[in-house]
C-alpha cells in the first residue's frame, strides 16, 4: 500500500467511527508506535499535541512527501529564503492532522495553540502584549510555512507594522526630522510580541530607553533643557519618538512657555532643590495665564466636571502634544476615557457619524462648558446639524419651531427627532431598522 493509500484508509476508518470517537480525539488515543522515519521537530516539548509524524506510523520517507503529492504548490514556498523549521523537515503533521480536524486548515489544535507548542513568545509577567498575539492571530504577521522575510514575516520590517499602525508610520515617514531608530525598524525600541518591562511593547520604560542612546547630561542637551534634570522626566511628554516636523522632535503643538524655554514660568528654578516641582499646584498654576478664559468657562450653566474640579491635566498635557490645544490624545481616546458608552454606540453603529469617527467631538460639544444640555455648542439642534448638513435645513422633512412632534406635544421636529448623532443599531443613525417603522410612528394612517 502506498503512503497516500494508507492515509486514505485511516481517514475512512476515522469517518466511519462513531461520532463521539471522531470528535477531537485526545492525544492519548492516537497511534503511539514511533516511526523511525518520523522524528518530531521538538520531541521533548511537554505541551505539544501528539500530532508528530511518529504518531501516524508513516512509512520511511513518506513524511511530508505524501502531502506534497497533492500540495504541489509547496515547491515554490520551500524555495523561499525563510522556511518554518517543521516545513523544512517535511513534518506537516507537526501542525496538521491529516485525517480530520475541528479547526481550520486541518490544524491539530486552535491556531495559536499550535504555534504555542514551540513558540513561547510572551513574557510571563508582561506589562504589554501585542494585540494579535493576545488574540492568537500569529498569522497576521507570520507565514506558518515560508516567506521571503526573516522570521517568516509576511512583510518586511516597517511595512509589516504599517499594516495596522499607519497612523504612526505615515507621519513618521513624512516627518522632516527623523528619529534614527525608526529608520532602522520598529523592533529597535519595541518587542513585537510582548514586553515585561513597559507599556506600548517598549523594551524598557521611558526615560531609560531613551537614555540608552541620548546622554542628556551632555552640555549641549543640558543647555536645550535649561539645565533642568530631564533624565528624571518622561521624554515622550514633549518629544515624538517616531519623528516630527519640528526641531528637536517636539510634538506639533508645544505649550508656549516650553517653546520659549521658559520652564521656570511653571517650575521651580533649575538650580533649586526641587527643580521639577511646579510653582503652584493644580489649577492655580494654569490660572496664572488662563484666568480670563477660565472665568468665561465657569460663567456658563453647565461646566464639565474636570473643569469644575480644576483638573486641566485630565485632558491636556502641560508640555506638548500631537493634538491641537495640547489635548493628550485624539478626542475619541481623550473623551472616550470617561464617555466610553458613547464611543461604543458609535462603534456598534452601521452608519458612522463623521465627527465622532474622526474624533472631532468639539464640532458639536464644548469640552469646557456650555449653556445647553449635553454641552452642545449650539442649543438649536437644527442649526447645529446644519453647520455640516446645510442642505438638509431647507430640503428635508418639515422641521422647525412650528412643526409639532405628533409623539410628544412639547417637542417640535428637528434632526434628532429621527436621528441619533452617535449612532444606533440601524443604518443612517435611525432608531429603527425599518424606515417605515419610524415614519408610521407619526404617519399612523400608513401603518400596516
Amino acid at each position, binding site marked *: 500500500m502506498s503512503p497516500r493509500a494508507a492515509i486514505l484508509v485511516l481517514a475512512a476508518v476515522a469517518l466511519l467511527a462513531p461520532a463521539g470517537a471522531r470528535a477531537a480525539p485526545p492525544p492519548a488515543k492516537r497511534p503511539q508506535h514511533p516511526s523511525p522515519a518520523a522524528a518530531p521537530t521538538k520531541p521533548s516539548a511537554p505541551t505539544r499535541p501528539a500530532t508528530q509524524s511518529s504518531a501516524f506510523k508513516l512509512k520511511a520517507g513518506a513524511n511530508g512527501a505524501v502531502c506534497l503529492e497533492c500540495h504541489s504548490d509547496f515547491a515554490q514556498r520551500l524555495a523561499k529564503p525563510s522556511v518554518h523549521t517543521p516545513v523544512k523537515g517535511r513534518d506537516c503533521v507537526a501542525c496538521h492532522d491529516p485525517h480530520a480536524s475541528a479547526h481550520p486548515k486541518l490544524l491539530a489544535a486552535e491556531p495559536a495553540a499550535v504555534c504555542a507548542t514551540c513558540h513561547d513568545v510572551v513574557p510571563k509577567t508582561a506589562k504589554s502584549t501585542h494585540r494579535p498575539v493576545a488574540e492568537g492571530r500569529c498569522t497576521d504577521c507570520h507565514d506558518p510555512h515560508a516567506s521571503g522575510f526573516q522570521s517568516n514575516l509576511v512583510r518586511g520590517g516597517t511595512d509589516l507594522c504599517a499594516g495596522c499602525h499607519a497612523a504612526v508610520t505615515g507621519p513618521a515617514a513624512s516627518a522632516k526630522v527623523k528619529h534614527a531608530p525608526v529608520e532602522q525598524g520598529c523592533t529597535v525600541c519595541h518587542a513585537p510580541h510582548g514586553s515585561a518591562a513597559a507599556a506600548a511593547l517598549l523594551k524598557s520604560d521611558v526615560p531609560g530607553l531613551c537614555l540608552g542612546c541620548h546622554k542628556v547630561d551632555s552640555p549641549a542637551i543640558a543647555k536645550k533643557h535649561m539645565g533642568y534634570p530631564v533624565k528624571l522626566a518622561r521624554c515622550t511628554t514633549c518629544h515624538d519618538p517616531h519623528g516630527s516636523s519640528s526641531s528637536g522632535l517636539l510634538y506639533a503643538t508645544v505649550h508656549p512657555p516650553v517653546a520659549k524655554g521658559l520652564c521656570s514660568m511653571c517650575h521651580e528654578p533649575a538650580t533649586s532643590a526641587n527643580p521639577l516641582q511646579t510653582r503652584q499646584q493644580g489649577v492655580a498654576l494654569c490660572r496664572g495665564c488662563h484666568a480670563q478664559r477660565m472665568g468665561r468657562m465657569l460663567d456658563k450653566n453647565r461646566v464639565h466636571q474636570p473643569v469644575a474640579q480644576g483638573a486641566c491635566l485630565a485632558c491636556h498635557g502641560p508640555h506638548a502634544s500631537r493634538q491641537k490645544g495640547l489635548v493628550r490624545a485624539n478626542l475619541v481616546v481623550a473623551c472616550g476615557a470617561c464617555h466610553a*458608552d458613547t464611543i461604543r454606540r458609535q*462603534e456598534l453603529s452601521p452608519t458612522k457619524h463623521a465627527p465622532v469617527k474622526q474624533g472631532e467631538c468639539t464640532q458639536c460639544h464644548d469640552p469646557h462648558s456650555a449653556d445647553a444640555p449635553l454641552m452642545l455648542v449650539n442649543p438649536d439642534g437644527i442649526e447645529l446639524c446644519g453647520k455640516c448638513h446645510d442642505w438638509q435645513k431647507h430640503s428635508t422633512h418639515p422641521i422647525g419651531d412650528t412643526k409639532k412632534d405628533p*409623539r410628544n406635544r*412639547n417637542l417640535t421636529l428637528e434632526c434628532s427627532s429621527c436621528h441619533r448623532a452617535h449612532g*444606533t443599531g440601524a443604518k443612517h443613525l435611525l432608531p429603527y431598522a425599518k424606515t417605515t*417603522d419610524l415614519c408610521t410612528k407619526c404617519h399612523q394612517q400608513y401603518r400596516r
Partner: protein
Amino acid sequence: MRTPSKTAVLVALAATIPAAALAAAPAAGLKYERTIYSDTADVALRRPEGVACDDRGAVVVADTGNARLVVFGWKEGALAGGTQVKLAQLPYPVRVQIDGKGFVLALDRRAKRIVRVDAKGAFAGYLEPQGASSNPVTPAAFRVDAADNVYVLDVVAGKVLVVSPEGRVVRELPAPKASGLADVAVDSGGRIYLVDAVTAVVFAADPKATAFQPLSASLKEQISFPTYLTPDNRGKLYVVDQNGNAVVKLGVDGSFLGRELAMGWDDGAVYYPAQLCIDAGGAAFLADRNNDRVQVFQLPR
C-alpha cells in the same frame, strides 16, 4: 479594543432604540401612569432636570430650561395645581428636594449653590454649610433625609458633607477616587450612597463609616452612564441611566436586578432622563429631560 460582551452590546443598542423596537421592552416593573407637560397656565416644560416629591402630596419640578420651579399637588393619582416659582437666585435649577417643613431646596447648576424656597415660593436663603474643612463648598448634588439633614456632594473638594438643619457640617466623608461622581443619596437607615457615572460603580457608607466602599464591581455593562440614584426604602436602589435611557434596579448590596423603560418620545418612553423621586405610595416621578416633560410611573406594589 476589548471586545464588548453580548450584554454590553445589547445595553448600548438599547440606549438608542425605542421601546417598541425592543422585544424586552416595555419592562414589567414601572407602570406608566401619566405625563406632566405644562404648568397651570399651559406653559410647556422645557428641559426639566429635577423633580421632588413628599409624602404629603407635594411635587416640585425643576423646569431647568425655563429657569423656574413648578409646584403641583398629587393625591391618589390625580395631579393638581402647577404654580410657577421664578426667582433671580435660581437661573438654572437642576435638582430639587422638599424638606420636612415644606421648604423646597433647589440646586442651581449655574450659581453652584443650593437655594431654599419657602412654601409661598419666596427666596428663603442659601444653604451655607458652616464649619466645612474646605471652602467654598461647591455642590454637584445633594439629598435631604427625614430629619432634614442635607447631604452635599462636593466634587471639587472631593467630599460628602452632612449638614444639620441648623446649617452646621456635622460629618465629612472623603469621596472615593472616581472621575465622574454624579449623585449622592441616603436611605432611611442613614446609609449614604454615591454613584460614579464614568465607571458605573455605586459606593456606600454606613452611618458610622469613615469612608465609602464600592457596593460591587463596575456595572458599566448593564448601565451606560448613571447620573442619579435613589433608594426606595424597600430594599432596592433605583439608578437613572441618563445615556442608556432607562431606570436600573439594584439590590442594596449592589446586585443588578434589571432595567426598566426604554428610549423614545411617546408616553412611557424616556429620552435622557434626569432626577427620579419615589413617594411613600410608590409613585415614581421622573424628569424626562430631553422629552420636555415629567412622567409618573407606579412601582410594583
